């Protein structure tokens, strides 16, 4: 390995060039640097660093990735009325999911990291790891059929305006992944709203609509599956009668819990074989991710717990009110629909954009729970509220901290 290091060091590009920034980024990815502590101050440092922190979150997300990829394929075939059992047509669904997810994933990272590299080069500092997590989250919150050019615009907006304009990693006010989704939501609303977008592969969700397969499915995968003698993609398939592609939240808006349970069963919603954003559907896998984050103490339990309490309280209040069908959905069933768990576990707990003080985190999480539920239940235009709630509370997190710190300062100066 020493010879490898020597070879790399000999070919190190000149400082100040773009190539050097790239080299530095990949080099520090492969090797922890050989910097030693300064002559004064601490002489030993904790082994944790930002890379490991970020990678733990990415690892916690991997289960959601695997399931979500498969679920894209599953929902697609349920619409066609083929391979309706969850595990039937395993290879087809996995292959289909990959053809939808991988472009999203790759393009998110190309655009996001490209902008980050550019700014690191311009500012003369090394590439910072903040984008590892945002880049892992963005594909999970987008609809699978999102046109790639919209995705690139959204990621560019989020990284450029949401992060680099404020100074880079650790200095952004709003959650970067949610900014990307907010951009798509406000600039291209038809691509992200409504029932049509969560089932991949169709121009329109109508009975009898033709399926839309590209080269990957018809040529690449079909030849591959043909070699093994497995089932193949059928370009002539059409959507079955009676299929609406409605998400549970849209159904709840129409007719309350009864309408939801007509189409989906509770266990189906809990385990995640329903249409929705790629990462949000499988609650047990998200909870496992939450446990990983809690045991390693990367995410704050305070935000998760108070978020849950806030959402529970608000849904109970709406149950008492009961004015619209959505309000009558029992509070305990609110949590198996929609992206509550994903938002609370992975989005709200971002340490940079949340409150910094411990008590502030409790207030912050609680208000996210409450505001998110309000938007979900009352908002007629869009049946999910977490993105907006979290962005809203990100704006107020410094204010919450301000009052808590002021309190501490007043207490100290008063006893002087």
């Amino acid at each position, binding site marked *: 390995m020493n010879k490898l290091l020597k070879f790399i060091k000999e070919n190190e590009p000149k400082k100040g060039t773009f190539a050097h920034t790239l080299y530095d980024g990949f080099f520090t990815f492969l*090797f922890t640097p050989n910097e030693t502590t300064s002559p004064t101050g601490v002489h030993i440092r904790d082994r944790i660093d930002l890379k490991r922190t970020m990678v733990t979150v990415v690892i916690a997300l991997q289960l959601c990735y695997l399931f979500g990829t498969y679920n894209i394929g599953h929902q697609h075939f349920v619409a066609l009325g083929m391979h309706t059992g969850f595990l039937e047509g395993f290879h087809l669904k996995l292959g289909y999911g990959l053809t939808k997810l991988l472009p999203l994933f790759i393009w998110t990272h190309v655009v996001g990291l490209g902008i980050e590299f550019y700014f690191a080069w311009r500012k003369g500092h090394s590439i910072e790891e903040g984008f590892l997590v945002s880049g892992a989250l963005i594909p999970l919150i987008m609809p699978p059929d999102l046109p790639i050019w919209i995705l690139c615009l959204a990621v560019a907006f989020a990284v450029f305006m949401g992060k680099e304009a404020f100074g880079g990693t650790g200095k952004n006010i709003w959650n970067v992944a949610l900014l990307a989704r907010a951009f798509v939501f406000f600039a291209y609303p038809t691509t992200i709203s409504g029932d049509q977008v969560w089932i991949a592969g169709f121009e329109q969700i109508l009975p009898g609509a033709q399926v839309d397969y590209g080269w990957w499915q018809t040529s690449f995968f079909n030849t591959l599956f043909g070699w093994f003698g497995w089932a193949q993609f059928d370009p002539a398939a059409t959507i079955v009668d009676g299929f609406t592609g409605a998400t549970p939240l849209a159904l709840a808006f129409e007719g309350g819990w009864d309408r939801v349970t007509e189409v989906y069963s509770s266990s189906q919603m809990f385990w995640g074989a329903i249409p929705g954003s790629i990462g949000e559907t499988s609650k047990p896998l998200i909870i496992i991710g939450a446990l990983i984050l809690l045991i390693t103490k990367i995410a704050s339990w305070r935000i998760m717990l108070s978020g849950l309490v806030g959402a529970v309280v608000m849904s109970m209040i709406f149950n008492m009110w009961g004015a619209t069908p959505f309000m009558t959905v029992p509070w305990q069933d609110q949590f198996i629909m929609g992206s509550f768990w994903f938002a609370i576990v992975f989005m709200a707990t971002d340490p940079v954009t949340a409150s910094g003080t411990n008590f502030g985190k409790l207030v912050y999480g609680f208000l996210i729970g409450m505001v998110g539920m309000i938007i979900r239940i009352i908002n007629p235009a869009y049946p999910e509220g977490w993105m907006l709630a979290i962005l809203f509370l990100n704006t107020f997190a410094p204010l919450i901290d301000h009052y808590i710190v002021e309190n501490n300062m007043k207490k*100290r100066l008063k006893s002087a």
Partner: protein
Amino acid sequence: MKMKKTLLHPRSLVFGFMTSLFLLTSYPGYSQGMGEGDMVTIGILLILGVLVVGVVVIASSNAAYATALSGKTRTRTVEEVVGEESELRQHFEIKRGLNILLKGESDPGVVDVHTSRYAVLPINFNNILPIPKILVEEGAEVLAGQPIFFDKKHPNVFFVSPVSGEMAGIVRGPKRAIHQVVILADREIKYKDLEAPDLATADRATIRKFLKENGGWPLFRQRPFNILPDSEGDPRDIFISSFDSSPLAGDMNIKIDGRYDAMQKGIDVLNRLTDGKVYMGLDGRNNAVIPAELSNLKGVEKHYFGGLHPCGNVGIQINHIAPIRKGDTVWTIGVQELITLGGMFLEGRYDAARVINVAGNGALEPRYVRTLAGADLSEIIPQEFSDPAIRVISGNVLTGQKKDENPFLNYYDHQVTVIPEGDHYEMFGWLIPQTMRPSASQTFPNFLFKDMKFNVDTNTHGERRAFVMSGQYEEVLPVDTFPMQLFKAILTKDIDRMEGLGIYELVEEDVALCEFVCTSKQPLQAILRQGLDYMHSEA
């Protein structure tokens, strides 16, 4: 946000509220929608909703208060029988902190080493000008306790030589600042005779003058800012910490070396210097052994500090016993400095004897060494000193200073830590570490092995980044403040915020653990020093 604390116990409050909500929501009438009297019902429900939210907020603030308390230091009062009397002593259990267990603890035997050179280092003292006025010419003979330089800002405070011998010259640093005043020591130390005033009869001004003229003043440090005590003004209280909880600090009882009579005399002096109290923090940790002579010291109010490091830091002890407020000045003095102080009055001479311990996984023979203040470390541990792959640190791994061109022990240090340098690359070291190192993070399996001792080196394990993770510093700083906000206030030079967040109560060694656990590898002690210097010059 002002939170009212209710008189009701939060658990019963929340339970009652939840039960009533269950009952309300289970009433079938509600889910059918509204009948007559819609507006009235909506109004009542809205009011109910507001009340419910208010109750929940109060209940959660109580819950938050309870969880905050769980990190707070627990105190209890113990009654102890000392001789004939029984005293009430407070026992503080520090819950926020971190014990860093390292390999290379010193073996108990004490070895005498008298090096050939000693130095007094003006840079050890925080607020003196960089170029002090030297009183002795090069080549002249000095006695132990004889003044060798003074600071032009404090012209009546003298710094004295720890040994007798020949003045060997000064070593300058950048901008002609004096870094070392070196003395070539005699084999046998000759002491200057000090005519110490009689403690019982002399007034405070005489005692202070005696201390200033004979090198007693630098033995003390004043807080806030950790500087030499002001020429005028008496301290509110004086604090001593009788043990050190830093990594590899060793046993203070060995370092006291039986000189309890000098300690007692020193405490008598302290009582004459302040109108307030003299406090001593005793070791209250689980495996602590407190000799009877220590518990029997008179004239000092004793408190026990147990739990995690930094329970031995005098700043943390001050914060729990009698916090420093704006306008207060307190003095602190270390145990060995106290012994020197007592020796000035008891024996009439300046005895700079120090028992230090050499420790660390880079040390060939970790042991205790009896020498004098300002000893030349390159003679005490010559092999480790000459090895470029080894770092010799005067002090402990958290707050010490690296020694190379300047080989002398720092004035206030009583420990030398020797660890290997860590300037090597590790492939995917952040993902799959190849060696075990101490960490406060639970992303490593360290937390499963509570008593494991670690080898360390000086690798930073990552590059410097902006502040990202929150809540890390609060877990290792047992002071009621917000450390991250304090550091940001220092960086933005916000004086009101610095004061409000307690910069007067903190000194670099108190935030050393924060710097250790920092994921973003920020130089927090340097930032705090910058802030303290700024506040000292502004305020």
